[in-house]
């Protein structure tokens, strides 16, 4: 499964309150699951970086 698909699958099953929580910190910026979703969905550069980092952390 591609990382993007994997992320969407996990996101869909997250408790609603957890979606507001930080899932990754990049360049000292905390990023929530919700913001990560938007970035990844819109194929942004940040979205790609988020996916890469989540994979490194074994969250994906």
């Amino acid at each position, binding site marked *: 499964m591609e990382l993007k698909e994997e992320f969407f699958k996990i996101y869909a099953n997250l*408790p609603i*309150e*957890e979606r507001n*929580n930080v899932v990754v910190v990049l360049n000292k910026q905390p990023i929530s699951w919700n913001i990560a979703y938007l970035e990844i969905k819109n194929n942004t550069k940040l979205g790609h970086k988020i996916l890469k980092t989540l994979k490194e952390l074994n969250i994906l």
Partner: protein
Amino acid sequence: MACVLFSRPCDDVTLNYLHYYSKELVLECDKIGHKTINKEKEEANKAIIISIINKQKPELIMFNGHGSPEEICGHKQEVIISAKENPETLKNTIVYSLSCSSALILGPKSVENGAISFIGYEFDFALGKDTESEASPKYDKIAKLFLEPSNILFSSLLNKKNVKTSVEKAKKKMKENIDYLHATSSFPEAIYYAPFLFGNYLGLIAHGDNEAFIN
């Protein structure tokens, strides 16, 4: 009926919560008709506990207390059982250790040295607290989420269910409580307790004979 030993120190805030919650287990044990030996507060010390284990030979033991991967402690953090010093003390017993991470090293070591089964936690045990309860365990709805599964586990053992079933029941309750923390809107900080309760869920393990039970 079995002989059951409880070690229940109570010398700090955290242990006070464990002490309070395990009281109902002592009462249940007695009600069932087991020989109930309850050593609490300053009596939950090494000399008394080891003496009772050697003389009374309990089939089932519950340890409340602080701990480490190699140790279970009693009153004032005195080490009662240590993987290096006296793991054989738990020979021929089923043990439930509500002590941080004692299942990591002491658990398997005690089984190697004759313990029938050692149930405990491989990670540090976490306990959440409701700040509105003012250190009163009785009214603490958050602590209940963390300690209720532990009581379910030991109650199951007291009622002669085997180790595997008892651990499964506790994990099931932990999962239910995690789901509750995920979904509830009754207190805003609920979601922040979930990771810690999950750590307890992940860490709960039984070494030795999973089919063991007391008579």
